[in-house]
């Protein structure tokens, strides 16, 4: 019995590592770039869209995993899309109700989560082939990985392009967060490019490069002495 649980735990760890790092949807698979690039001019916007995407991903992965034995493979894509569209509609309406201003800022990019390839990709490549528990873990960690990239990208662009960090945090966290905003000194002159579209591409490119660099450094083998046979003939 313990063996089964150990196996499960091992699987979960594997899924988590893939979702957060090895197969990060934003940095490795490069899926869902349209909303990623468009809303990350601010870390709070990034967090908002990241959470919305994660909620959709969780719903769709659960539903797809539950019905995976009943959907004929010929029509699976339309079925997945219908499920995702339902989830997005619900999330969209909930955000409209509870996070009105944030909903207004994110605007079209919330309905557009439907077309986020990352979600369809997880439904097709993972949830439709795996059990419910694994699909939930996958959705959570893929979502967290995506959200972390959104926040990081938003934070970098906000600091450089606006001279602030966590601006408008109250849109998500309520009144408490009204003075969470950190400001750079007044003498700093914001570089507008960073919060404009080209800044998104440049910053994401640099983040991908950084990830690859870290991977490369990690992969570099430690010094291994290779035995060499030397024959000396007299």
């Amino acid at each position: 019995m313990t063996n089964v649980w150990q196996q499960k735990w091992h699987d979960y760890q594997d899924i988590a590592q893939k979702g957060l790092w090895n197969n990060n949807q934003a940095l490795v698979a490069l899926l869902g770039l349209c909303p990623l690039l468009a809303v990350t001019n601010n870390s709070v916007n990034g967090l908002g869209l990241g959470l919305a995407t994660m909620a959709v991903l969780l719903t769709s992965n659960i539903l797809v995993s539950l019905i995976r034995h009943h959907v004929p493979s010929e029509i699976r894509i339309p079925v997945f899309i219908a499920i995702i569209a339902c989830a997005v509609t619900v999330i969209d309406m909930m955000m409209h109700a509870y996070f009105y201003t944030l909903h207004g800022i994110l605007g079209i990019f919330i309905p557009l989560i439907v077309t986020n390839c990352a979600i369809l990709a997880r439904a097709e490549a993972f949830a439709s082939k795996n059990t419910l528990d694994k699909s939930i873990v996958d959705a959570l960690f893929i979502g967290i990985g995506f959200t972390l990239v959104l926040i990081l990208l938003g934070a970098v662009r906000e600091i450089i392009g606006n001279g602030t960090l966590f601006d408008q945090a109250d849109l998500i966290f309520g009144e408490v967060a009204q003075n969470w905003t950190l400001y750079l000194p007044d003498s700093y002159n914001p570089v507008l490019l960073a919060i404009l579209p080209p800044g998104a591409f440049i910053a994401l490119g640099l983040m991908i490069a950084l990830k690859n660099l870290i991977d490369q450094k990690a992969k570099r083998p430690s010094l291994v002495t290779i035995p060499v046979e030397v024959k000396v003939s007299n």
Partner: protein
Amino acid sequence: MKSIYTSSPFAHNNSSVQKVMLQVQLAAFPALLAHILLFGYGIIIQWFLAVATALLVEYVMLKLRDKPVLPNVTDFSALITVTGLVFCIPPESPWWVIVSGSAFALVFGKHLYGGLGYNPFNPAMLGYAFLLISFPAEMTQWTLPKEIAGYSLSFWESFNHILFGAVAHAPIDSFTGATPLSAVKTGIQEGVSAQQMLQAPYLETGWWNLTAWGWINLAFLAGGAWLIYTRTIRWQYPVGFLGALGLMAWIFHSINPDLYAPVSFHLLFGGTMLAAFFIITDPVSSSTTPLGRLIYAAGIGVLVYVIRNWGAFPDGIAFAVLLLNIAVPLIDRYTQPRVLGHNR
């Protein structure tokens, strides 16, 4: 006797990257002199800041890329890049403008693409576009010529102003203003005719009735003529660019002289001559076929006119050059000269 077997061509070309770059630098000298005489010493300080930044950035980037430092720094290509950039920015702008612009041009325009020879975009124009988009307020405040401001900064005043933001006598607004291109553009948008705008005092005064901007453009023209004479640059670039820009200006000026400024205005204001002889002639990021060069240069000329008249920015050279840089592979593909012995 020993024979050496080599294949054709046997043409000899006594030039190197280094030599070409130094020739270009030398050709910019008249314009530099005119700039100092007309707009003060700001440009010298900016140039030293830019060169210092360039040396530092080159050193760091070459170390990071595991490339030899000395041969790559002494090809002087970074020097040309930052010199081109220095001429584009307002001479009294704060130090971080030229430092960040030069660093961006070299890091993102050159090294990230693999160094000199691999950059699809003109690094100087990439740096300038970066500055235009990032610091719009700083980039539009150009120093007024002495005759108009009635006052000019001494070397130390310029130095203090650029490095520490301190102004000795007057607020910055009293000696900077909009460039003629942006003044005329705003005027036309407000309903003043182009003719009237050109008679505004600061567009007429100057030595021999030619404005400071006109003199600088002529100085670039002189340097450029020498570059063509020494065959450092090809004639297709200036001819295509100035031809297309002049033709566009002539057509629209003939249609409606109230709305569209005359040809001389477009040729003698803004960065026209700088672009024609020093910017679009960059051999790395421009077309490589004779006909392609002509198309490339003419495309830039047309786009510059379009952006100057109907765009959001007063001058459009940076954006026009970058857009045509992207089009270069396509232009090259369709303008390949016929190989000897092949049919059409």
